[in-house]
């Protein structure tokens, strides 16, 4: 562990009034993080792998019916329920990034962490990825390809965070606000996702997290999530 811990607390804001539920984030995340496609049968068995998924809940009755969209990814809890239950210390807290990470090589697939996650954020590999050649050419070399029996989840694109910090350090300057964007944030067509450093009170994400529409997912559990949701106007309970 580094002697001086860097006070970086990465956070994400999801503006549900901008979110259209288009699922571009789901696909962008999967392409960036080598999340395998599993095929129709596996999705039907509930074994599809989505690090971020759009929770769509119908509200109201016809004709005043509408879907409430809520993109849900790992909330990077400050007090994460998945961490203490892992017998192999595969679910660990990164003190440097203040996020929750999975050490794939330690994971033996007990799935205790997924049981304990209230957000359904953890995904289990029920089989090895089946990506025939040459389609494996697009796999991101910065991200491990996980094998059967390993739990995985959103990392806030930690490879991009590290890359951004290395860039800044090579140029001898602090990281700029907005310099690091996870794949979902970069893709989001309607600008519903904002990522940044919560420890900097002037960052865009800190400012937005102060919005009066803000709430945390299942805040009452005391998980201290790093993801802040902004209620949609007129819908989504706003």
């Amino acid at each position, binding site marked *: 562990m580094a002697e001086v811990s860097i006070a970086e607390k990465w956070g994400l804001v999801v*503006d549900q*009034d*901008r979110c*259209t*539920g*288009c*699922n*571009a984030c*789901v*696909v*962008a995340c*999967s*392409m960036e993080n080598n999340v395998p*496609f*599993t*095929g*129709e*049968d596996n*999705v*039907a*068995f*509930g*074994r*599809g792998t*989505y690090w971020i*998924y*759009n929770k*769509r809940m*119908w509200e109201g*009755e*016809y*004709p005043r*019916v*509408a*879907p409430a*969209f809520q993109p849900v990814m790992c909330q990077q809890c400050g007090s994460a329920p998945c961490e203490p239950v892992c017998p192999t210390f595969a679910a660990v807290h990164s003190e440097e990034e203040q996020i929750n990470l999975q050490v794939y090589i330690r994971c033996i697939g007990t799935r205790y962490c997924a049981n304990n996650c209230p957000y359904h954020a953890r995904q289990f590999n029920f089989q090895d990825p089946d990506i*025939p*050649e*040459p*389609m494996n*050419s*697009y796999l*991101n*070399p910065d991200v491990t390809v996980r094998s059967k029996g390993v739990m995985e989840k959103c990392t806030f694109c930690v490879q991009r965070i590290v*890359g*951004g910090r*290395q860039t800044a*350090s*090579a*140029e001898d300057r602090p990281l700029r606000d907005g*310099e690091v964007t996870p*794949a979902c944030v*970069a*893709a989001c*067509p*309607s*600008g*519903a996702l904002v990522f940044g450093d919560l420890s900097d009170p002037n960052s865009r994400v800190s400012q937005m997290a102060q919005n009066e529409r803000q709430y945390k997912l299942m805040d009452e559990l005391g998980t201290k999530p790093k993801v802040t949701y902004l209620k949609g*106007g007129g*819908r989504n309970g706003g």
Partner: protein
Amino acid sequence: MSDKITRRDFLKIAGAGAAVSAVLTGCGPMSRYIVRRPYTEMPEYNQTGLNTYYASTCRECAAGCGIIVRTKEGRAITIEGNPQHPLNRGRLCARGITAQQGLYNPDRVIGPIFQARGAAGRQAKTTWDETIPLVSDALKSPADQVAFLMGTAPDHLYDLVNELTTAIGAPAPLRYSALASFEGRTTLQEAANRTFGKPALPYFDLANAEVVFSFGANFLETWLSPVSYSAAYGDMRQARPTRRGYLVAFEPRQSLTGGNADEWIPIKPGSEGLVALALARLVAEARGEAPSAAARSVDPTAVAEAAGIEPAKLAELARLFASSEHSLAIPGGGAIGQHQGLAIAQAILQLNVVVNNLGMIGGVFLTTSEQPATTLTEVSNLVQKMNNSQVKVLFIHGTNPVFELPKVLGFAEALAKVPLVISFATFPDETAMFSDYILPDHSPLESFGYQRLLAAADRPVYSSIQPVVAPLYDTRATADVLLAAAAAAGKPLPYTDEVDFVQQKIVPLISAGGFYSAPEIQTFWSRWLQYGGWWVTEQGLDADISAASGSIAAFNDPAALEEDKQFYLVVYPTQLGDGAGANRPWLQEMPDPMTTLTWNTWVEINPETADKLGIHDDDVVRVTTPFGAVEASVYRYPAIRPDTIAIPFGQGHTALGRWAEGRGANPAALLPAAVNEAGDLAFSDVTASIALTGKRRPLARVENRGGVYGEH
């Protein structure tokens, strides 16, 4: 790497490469010609372990979003939006993000083949040296018997083929895509022509509008330019601190846009024009103005009844529309893809005239480029000619008519009567299987070119396309094949190859006042590639629009139905686009936003109706229209009129590779070949019947994380 570079310098270089927008390569592999070389001879610009970024243009649909592709060791790794591009400003949709799954798809056509119309015993590989004379001979056929059928992208190839057909005296190339049909592009352009007197696609300033009425326009998912309209939607909601835009969607089946609307008004299919006229009357009256003659001819109460809305609701919406400073009405594909579609589009555009938002912030503008017509009428005429054996040679590029066109049009049968069919497909799709030869073009990420017809750009844009990787296989640019063949046929065009063609076409842009210029074409070319295209810095929409005096035809009432026996049928496109996306596994696995269904075709039916008919989730039903029938599993969809059923388009492939084949059903079998007055497919006023088959097939849905296969 030279040993003079210290570790610190190395880190600096590495860091520079990681900043996406900072370093875009402007010289390097695009040095005019692509050469295939083993990666043991790694070119200087491509160092192991370092990212190289290329700006290009997405070709997954015709919208023309700018992309930046991150490559490493010669492989395309990640695709993101180009932050500088005026259309998508760094954003991208699911289709663009998965374009590598097309590039690296194991089912691609890897070299020219004699396809023999799918007769497996006669299929044979061939070589480009043998096929160029073949294409050249084909071009020497009697000019009126040569036909080109092309897709909506890329534009540079369309421009080239246009010149080629002019040179040999053949009919101009046709462009067709099912997506353009579902969007109602031609209808929209013609309606703008009749309403404003100019044949240009209208541009809707959604971001600055306050009250938006969408009539069947699913602009958040597929319509015209979903990424730029999604960005505008986000701004309409939250970019202004004090005013939140209000969206009302009039459509029988709630699309993603309807689902995000503040109010979804499920009007009867076929009543859109009447509703627009009634609104025009009520809005004009609320503003203290005299309604137009067409608007006066309708009785709002009777219209509300015919459309299935409360008259009070209609009046309330009209007051809302009339009282806002920035009201906007958008005519979308579902509303205007009907027999009376042109008049419906005019009536909806007329609503903008009533609130006088023409050329105003938050209102309607006209785009500056004229879009070439892609009408079904012209395609039908081509099919007629093929049936009459008046077409000897048919070239097909970028479209899959056997799959996309309504089956009742009989394209596949007509194709059998064409003696020589040459396909330039990158995938063995349905049409390519029916061809004599497949002469595969490079995949879009291996190609040069440009897109210049961006339906939602607010300024003149030429968006450049460049290879981000060296071609994987023995494919050849279709432009190069045609140029070589034309020269061999004695009708040479004044271009040495595709790159020369693109360069000559962009020469006028050097002095056209864009955001960069150059003393000569080579420097200009390298910037053109580096920035991902050419555009002007200032917004340049045609704000000089005014209402032309035009009358609107009277509307019929919606078709009457036999209750619980007949249903209005809605066929709508999804993230699979015109069906070409079905071989991208991540587009298949991505849950449909509204239903969360994956990997299949489904039939949406209101649960109330389903209960009456005894239909449960996952029951396989047979949907029949006068034109054909398909079978698919039921999804009980709460946000659809009880007298309407809906089927997504894009599945049901019989070819196109392992992930697309034998999956779901193709609703093209249900569609008529009828067109509206503008020549676009009239797909949304079809009635269908539905019958249980007694079979059950569970659909893979993500909304139930426990799975749908029961205990396991």
